[in-house]
């Protein structure tokens, strides 16, 4: 899955720690999401979207491999 979490976070001048604290996860989780090592759950994706005041679809996008 492709995501634009890092770009959006940097646009809002937030650190990984800031974002992690806001949504109640570890900084390692934010790092893993941004480096595409981990696809967040629906709940976590929604929390990130709400924190960024945007839609989930603007942050996450399915790739071709996700359909395999």
């Amino acid at each position, binding site marked *: 899955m492709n995501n634009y979490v890092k770009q959006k976070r940097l646009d809002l001048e937030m650190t990984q720690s800031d974002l992690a604290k806001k949504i109640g*996860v*570890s900084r*390692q*989780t934010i*790092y*893993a999401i941004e480096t595409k090592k981990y696809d967040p759950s629906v709940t976590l994706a929604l929390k990130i979207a709400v924190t960024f005041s945007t839609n989930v679809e603007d942050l996450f996008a399915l790739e071709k491999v996700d359909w395999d």
Partner: protein
Amino acid sequence: MTACKGNFTFHHVNFALHLMPNFTYIVMKYLLLPKHFRTAGWFLLIPGLLAGFSNYIFNTEPEFLNVTMFAIANAGFYQTTYFTLIETNIWQELISLMIIMGGIFIGFSRTDIEDEYIQKIRLEALTWAVYVNYLILILAIIFLYGFTFTDVLVFNMFTILLIFVARFEWVLVNLNRETDNE
């Protein structure tokens, strides 16, 4: 409504969980021990492993641990007795309990921030440990015989837990290192 009568829905369970004290809620939500158990776990596991290796090599038992224990079953060379009191040295039993409890405390205690990604890492480490442990056991079954295999059976009591803890901690350390470099 009639069809739902008597059925527990997710909302019933979730509501009940929120009524419980925080400790129990956390344990039941994550099936994990509180995080201070991790420290206690290391204080059990490391001495337990050292004592275990020492016992394996030197085969000595402290005399003050000769005690009377209640045995549900005690199989000797000639007979097996049930529900009896026996005289035995409990050094090996203590070592085993230290290793097992230490491993469980370390592997199944909450981390500083317990979230879904850490839970995924924990589950993957547990899966990996099962595969590796039984691969080793399969090879041991095929290639080791006699009393050597008896040693394998003894070690096998602990290896799945130890492999899990080692793998879990290794992944966490690497993850922390990568995150710090970011």
